[in-house]
């Protein structure tokens, strides 16, 4: 597999805030790479640097072997960017918007028109192509927003939380489109703080927090790093604030304590749960409910950072 995107020691400071702390990662051709992290983790800064609109303080980015700093125009031709916000001209129709955005890549008129028709068809919006964008729903606008980044057939598609604030139907359609594009060979970099999106779509995931990549790998590789297969969540009837320290001492594998619940990682909940409940009973705490979950990205993130993904 060829490396199509190489990010090396990328650092960026905003005043006194370190948005990126020399992060490095590389992505292979035809890979679906997810950058998972909470708000403010550094995902958008990373995307802004790769998409050339932000200069890093340190480090470099190479796209298909071209240095982004030395050859930005060539690099821009190889990437398609779908930003968080919907960036379209509301007074123009979908077709006119696509004609404009595609036209910036100097495609011939015939090629562009063919691409527009294909993309509108892919997005399921051919019938509405002549309607002004202002008449579209949020989900439809998102789809046109994505379509506008696909017209020049980019080698890499950079997507910065593209499903924020849309209805489940449009979200599903977008996922189907992305899966189709991935199947056709497109490399996709996808940032999100929805772990279910990353789990469904991504071949490989980088977990980013406070400007650092704290874990990286396939879903299975990440699961193995946690050294646990399941998580046990115990909900109590009353507040456990006064017993928090005692609980931490009693269970070394606690990954989270709340007002009235604890989350404990476990290799085998069937064996470990009776023991745990006995100890809790000895502490005279009344259990309200017990949940046993398979380890997912949410629990992995919790395990790695001690915080929930959407904190």
């Amino acid at each position, binding site marked *: 597999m060829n490396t199509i995107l190489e990010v090396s020691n990328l650092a960026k400071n905003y005043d006194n805030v370190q948005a990126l702390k020399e992060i490095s990662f590389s992505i292979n051709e035809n890979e679906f790479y997810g950058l998972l992290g909470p708000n403010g983790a550094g995902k958008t800064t990373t995307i802004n640097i790769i998409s050339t*609109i*932000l200069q890093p303080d340190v480090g470099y980015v190479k796209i298909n072997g071209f240095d982004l700093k030395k050859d930005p125009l060539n690099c821009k031709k190889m990437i398609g*960017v779908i*930003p968080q*916000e919907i*960036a379209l001209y509301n007074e123009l129709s979908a077709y006119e918007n696509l004609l404009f955005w595609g036209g*910036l*890549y100097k495609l011939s008129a015939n090629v562009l028109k063919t691409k527009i028709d294909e993309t509108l068809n892919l997005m399921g919006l051919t019938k509405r192509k002549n309607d002004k964008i202002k008449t579209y729903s949020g989900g439809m606008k998102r789809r046109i927003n994505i379509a*506008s980044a696909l017209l020049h057939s980019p080698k890499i598609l950079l997507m910065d939380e593209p499903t924020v604030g849309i209805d489940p139907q449009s979200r599903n359609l977008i996922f189907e489109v992305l899966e189709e594009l991935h199947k056709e060979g497109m490399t996709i970099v996808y940032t999100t703080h929805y772990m279910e999106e990353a789990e469904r779509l991504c071949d490989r995931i980088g977990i980013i927090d406070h400007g650092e990549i704290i874990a990286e790998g396939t879903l299975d590789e990440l699961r193995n790093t946690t050294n646990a297969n399941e998580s046990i969540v115990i909900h109590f009837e009353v507040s456990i604030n006064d017993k928090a320290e005692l609980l931490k001492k009693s269970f070394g594998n606690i990954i989270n304590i709340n007002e009235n619940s604890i989350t404990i990682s476990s290799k085998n909940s069937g064996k470990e749960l009776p023991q745990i409940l006995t100890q809790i009973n000895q502490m005279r705490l009344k259990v309200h409910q017990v949940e046993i979950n398979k380890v997912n990205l949410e629990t992995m993130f919790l395990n790695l950072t001690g915080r929930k993904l959407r904190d």
Partner: protein
Amino acid sequence: MLKLAIKDLKLMIHDRRAVILTLIVPIALISLFAFAFGGSGKSNDTNPISIFISDQDSTEVSRNVISKLDTLKSLDIKLLPLENAKEEVKKGSKVAVLALYKGFKDSVESGKNYPMELFYDQSRQIEAGLLQQVLFSNLMGIIGIKSIKGNIHKMIDEENPGLSKKELGEIYTKVDEQIAKFEKSDKNPDKSFMGMKATPMFSTPENNLGLVQAVAGVAIMMLLFSVTGMGSGMLTEKEEGTLKKLLYSPIRPSSILFGKMTSTIIVSIIQLTVMFLFAWLTFGLDIFIDVPSLIVMILSTAFACASFGIFIASIAKTRKQVESFSTLVILIMSAIGGSMVPIFIMPAIMQKIAVVSVNYWGIQGFYDIFWRHLPISDVMIRVAVLLGIGVFMMGISIKNFKKNILTIA
């Protein structure tokens, strides 16, 4: 009720834009209009009227008249040969030229009509009218009555050699009383006995001066408003995210700026052209007097105004800032530049300040074409200044845009 009122007042005080629009803008405009219409409230404050004098007689009498006129506070005099002075008046540098022709001294001494002529810029009729009044009253004082009285006394002496000094004195007194009475009476035929001819510099104007002023003044002011709106389009693009998306595409950031500037200039050209066509069709403004000059003026005015509009947008960070700031700046520019009040009725100081305004150069350029009928070579001076303003503003705008708008972080 009182609580609501206090809350609203507090909100208003904290809204800088509202304070500016409520207090600062009216104060600025009142000050400007007060200056434009002539000053600080002291009614005896006068601004000198600038004129040329061409002394073709070049005698002691003519020099004496000129030096006496030069002592007047109401006049600012410069000597120049007649043809040169007429050219300058035509270009609008001074209101008029007073020509004292050969034989002026002889005419004064013999009491005949004086060979002198006042050539004035008809586009500055108010100033020219004031000037004529100043000249008539003062010339009358300097040479007119003295000369008439002197001649009559001389004639009485010659005709009545036998009369005593006392008798002659009584006759002089009666004659002087009659002259004074005549001076004040309605029978004084427009004081034209002095023989000063007043000639407008543009004898057959094709266009009405007021119409030229209205069209050029309003067209440029409205153009400034519309181009500022267009210039702020870049901020709209930033606020709506499309600018960021444009920056993703393989075009240089400077191309985005130049694209925006080009569209603004094109719209400016269309707007000015449509306004002049409308004035031609509706009010009969003859816009075909000098088509090449008109085209050059429209292009340069459009460029200067578009650059100005973009400049205003470039120094703001939000569309709201553009809206409030541009209203203030454009109204001030239009007031001092002659869009609202014709420059020629403003005091000299305001006329000097006016040159900092885009409006001034645009309006004067259109005056040159439609009213003064100047050749294209003379119009080119205004064109050069407008292009200079445009290039300067554009340069600063590019710098500001790169600093304020093209930076995502």
